[in-house]
């Protein structure tokens, strides 16, 4: 039924009209009556003691309503920001969790750290007043690089974290790995740096704190991917207001990519200040503030070693990583370089022994947390770079080496040595599909053609895996998560047969309003235009965990399916009564209830109407047609695929042209192919951006962010890409009712390794991301000089 608007159809998006006509309602588009405006005075230093703050002059400036410093929050009992995932070091100690005040009290620890909050009648007045605040700093020497943070004599970011070591964690069987290496015929070793990125959602973060003195309720409007989690943290840990007196609204949100998961200082202060001044207060980040204070991504220094036998079979993998956490722990920072990273180091391969050691360190830089992929891109980057390097060392085709080590399609469920159980997949099929898309057979001729023109051509592979559908609550709880990672859904029929679905997932570009509606249309036969998806308001939606980790369809969609099951179950009872049949004889399909073996039937709309106008209604059944369900997944999902990049390099200029891109991805069942393709496009673009263009660079001596604007941080633009060639394969996920795996992060996970493997293939030497023209030119010249 409903083939044009049901599951599997590329339904055009329901949300597009408002975005295309300027009627989207992003945070800065919202204004509250009598609203004041807040501006943060931020630290110009990477590391300094605050000797004094003088707000006297600023307080007298025109329009100023109030000025708050860190001591005002502390005096009011407002707690610091928290990290919600506990990691245990290998010596059994919990990770170090230094204080993270929303406004610095006596020390600033990164450029952009909050020093004061100025509230005035207009933004301009608040800015003018902020300039009048006098802060006396005692500057300290900062530490910037994660690799430097452990050195003796490095600056100590927190007095209570000796040696800047947040945790020293391990996963896997070290002895088994040592044994594998001692019996290896060949060992490949690689040092790599996974560059620090600034997420750069196009809508800057923003918040409005509003206070209703009549009800004592604080309403916080915030750019969040998970408003209930924000409410929980702000209530239970920061102490802003009791949970039932705090409503969090995340309206249309202009992109997140992980950076809007976290509970930041700015929304905390806005929510608190609204009650202090008994007036709404709005803060909107300028882009330079986004660069300085949005949680950054990646920043791993890694040494990896791969042991192989004489035939290229992988015997063991040893990985040592230093992960830069920045100056403070962001909300989920600790989980990213540990359980979201090392657990994926098996990749698509049968490597029997794996050991990872991760040291997480503090530096005087912006906090680092989950960014599109979160740990899994770092894992794929390590594996796929070293596998490609190994193929070169062995003189073997990188395709053949991978195929020799792929987990077989009939090996599922497959338990890896790093605590994951892969549930389904067909890795050779993805490789073969991608090879066809890129015309691998014709590659040698294309390479010869490039060489005849004085260019260097390269091809690179990335067979990635990720763990998505995050996540079974019991599993993540046992690994240190402070929350459960289920999802909620409420399916509410209105008396006239239209439906509102309330979901705990949050859409900030993913198209839930369309994809989730397709589920209702498919299963309950409601025309798609009669389905409304509501999300993002803790005052409307059941408690939900939000959107990240490619979880919304696999977990949030599954919750909707559970609520649909309840609707059908209740509907059968109503239908049985209406048709004077027994419930056992009622069959349901696509919104039609039939008496088995007869032509008697009623529609879902008739049943819903009867449920709300119960004049003729089963005596033992509650009226209404409104069901809520919570779904806790049984396992992660494991999307996987192969991406192939083909590049041409001009050795005289260092220009890398991405000529072609093939992607074969297995996301399980697909609800809306158009939206899935769009997710791949966007993910790959971010991955190409990381490999070629983007880099968050701090000055090593001063700790200043050198790439702090779009003038300095190279964002990918339309002319940096070719059109991608995409196919999806499908091994349905056995772990959820929809058979889906999630597609949001795959491109960003797969792409960096594919592109860097292509570039290093063309150059003949290893280089680190980003492969800027200067770096590529130097590499090309060094190869040429060595040859001469």
């Amino acid at each position: 039924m409903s083939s044009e608007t049901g599951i599997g159809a590329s339904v055009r998006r329901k949300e597009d009209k408002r975005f295309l006509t300027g009627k989207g309602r992003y945070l800065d588009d919202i204004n509250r009556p009598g609203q004041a405006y807040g501006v943060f005075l931020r630290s110009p230093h990477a590391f300094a003691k605050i000797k004094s703050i003088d707000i006297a002059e600023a307080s007298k400036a025109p329009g100023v309503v109030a000025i708050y410093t860190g001591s005002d929050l502390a005096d009011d009992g407002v707690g610091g920001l928290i990290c919600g995932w506990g990691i245990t070091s290998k010596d059994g100690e919990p990770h170090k969790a230094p204080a993270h005040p929303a406004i610095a009290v006596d020390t600033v620890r990164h450029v952009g750290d909050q020093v004061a909050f100025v509230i005035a009648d207009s933004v301009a007045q608040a800015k003018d007043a902020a300039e009048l605040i006098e802060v006396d700093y005692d500057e300290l020497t900062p530490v910037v690089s994660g690799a430097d943070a452990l050195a003796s004599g490095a600056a100590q970011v927190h007095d209570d974290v000796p040696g800047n070591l947040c945790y020293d964690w391990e996963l896997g069987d070290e002895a088994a790995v040592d044994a594998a290496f001692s019996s290896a015929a060949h060992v490949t070793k690689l040092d790599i740096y996974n560059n620090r990125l600034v997420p750069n959602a196009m809508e800057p973060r923003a918040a409005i704190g509003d206070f209703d003195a009549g009800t004592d309720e604080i309403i916080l409007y915030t750019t969040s991917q998970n408003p209930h989690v924000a409410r929980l943290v702000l209530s239970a840990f920061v102490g802003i207001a009791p949970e039932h007196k705090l409503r969090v609204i995340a309206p249309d949100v202009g992109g997140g990519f992980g950076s809007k998961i976290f509970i930041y200082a700015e929304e905390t202060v806005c929510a608190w200040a609204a009650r202090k001044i008994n007036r709404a207060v709005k803060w909107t980040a300028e882009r330079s503030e986004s660069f300085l204070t949005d949680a950054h991504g990646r920043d791993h220094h890694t040494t990896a070693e791969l042991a192989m036998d004489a035939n290229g079979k992988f015997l063991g993998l040893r990985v040592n990583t230093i992960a830069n956490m920045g100056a403070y722990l962001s909300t989920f920072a600790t989980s990213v370089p540990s359980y979201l990273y090392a657990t994926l180091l098996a990749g698509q391969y049968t490597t029997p022994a794996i050991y990872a050691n991760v040291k997480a360190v503090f530096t005087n830089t912006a906090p680092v947390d989950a960014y599109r992929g979160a740990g899994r891109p770092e894992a794929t980057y390590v594996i796929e770079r070293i596998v490609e390097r190994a193929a070169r060392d062995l003189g073997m085709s990188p395709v053949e080496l991978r195929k020799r080590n792929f987990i077989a399609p009939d090996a599922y469920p497959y338990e890896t040595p790093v605590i994951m159980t892969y549930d389904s997949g067909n890795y050779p099929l993805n490789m073969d599909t991608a090879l066809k898309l890129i015309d691998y057979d014709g590659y040698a001729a294309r390479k010869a053609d490039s060489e005849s023109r004085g260019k260097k051509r390269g091809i690179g592979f990335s067979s990635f895996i990720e763990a998505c559908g995050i996540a079974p609550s019991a599993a993540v709880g046992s690994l240190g998560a402070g929350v459960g990672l289920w999802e909620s859904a409420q399916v509410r029929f209105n008396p006239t047969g239209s439906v509102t679905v309330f979901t705990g997932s949050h859409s900030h570009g993913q198209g839930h309003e369309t994809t989730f509606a397709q589920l209702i249309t498919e299963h309950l036969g409601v025309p798609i235009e009669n389905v409304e998806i509501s999300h993002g308001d803790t005052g409307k939606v059941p408690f939900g965990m939000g959107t990240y980790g490619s979880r919304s369809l696999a977990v949030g969609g599954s919750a909707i399916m559970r609520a649909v099951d309840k609707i059908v179950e209740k509907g059968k009872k109503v239908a049985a009564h209406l048709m004077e049949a027994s419930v056992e004889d009622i069959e349901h399909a696509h919104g039609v209830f039939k008496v088995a073996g007869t032509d008697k039937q009623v529609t879902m709309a008739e049943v819903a109407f009867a449920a709300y106008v119960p004049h003729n209604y089963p005596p033992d059944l509650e009226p209404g047609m409104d069901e809520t369900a919570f779904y806790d997944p049984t396992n992660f999902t494991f999307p996987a695929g192969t991406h192939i990049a083909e590049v041409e390099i001009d050795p005289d200029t260092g220009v890398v042209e991405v000529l072609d891109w093939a992607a074969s991805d297995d996301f399980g069942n697909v609800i809306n192919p158009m939206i899935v393709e769009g997710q791949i496009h966007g993910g790959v673009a971010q991955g190409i951006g990381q490999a070629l263009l983007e880099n968050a660079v701090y000055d090593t001596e001063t700790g200043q962010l050198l790439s702090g604007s779009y003038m300095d941080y190279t964002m990918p633009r339309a002319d940096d890409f070719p059109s991608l060639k995409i196919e999806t394969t499908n091994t349905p996920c056995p772990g959820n009712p929809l058979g889906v795996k999630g597609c949001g992060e795959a491109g960003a996970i797969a792409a960096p390794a594919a592109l860097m493997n292509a570039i290093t293939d063309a150059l003949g030497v290893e280089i680190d991301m980003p492969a800027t023209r200067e770096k590529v030119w130097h590499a090309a010249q060094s190869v040429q000089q060595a040859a001469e």
Partner: protein
Amino acid sequence: MPNVSMTVNGKAVSAEVEPRTLLVQFLREKLSLTGTHVGCDTSQCGACVVHVDGKSVKACTTLALQHEGADVTTIEGLAQNGELHPMQAAFKEHHGLQCGFCTPGMVMSAIDLVNTHPNPDEQTIREGLEGNICRCTGYQNIVKAVKAASDNMGG
């Protein structure tokens, strides 16, 4: 405070503004036309693009007072009688938007691009959109949408 008058989406408007008021602030704050967005502070991202006398302009880079008597069109002024402009329709048809934040500026730039270069090829479109940053789509479907719209814009 000085007064500025202009035509916005076909309507005559007039208001007192502080001299430092940017065109984008005038549109968003004085006229409540919040479809025009601010995504950066260095005139790089293009989320604020509007048409001034038919040409695309970054509204964050120009003062309201500079546009006395100008004819300004914003994203809110494109659809006529409830019917989407061909460029808006093409963005929807080809999934040229995800979070939607860059979309108004992207659509306004794309219309100017097609007006200037009727029937643009892929490379012309990609280069022509250099002044607009999108973080969601990877641009592929935007390029497709602009190409399709150019076929429908009588170019």
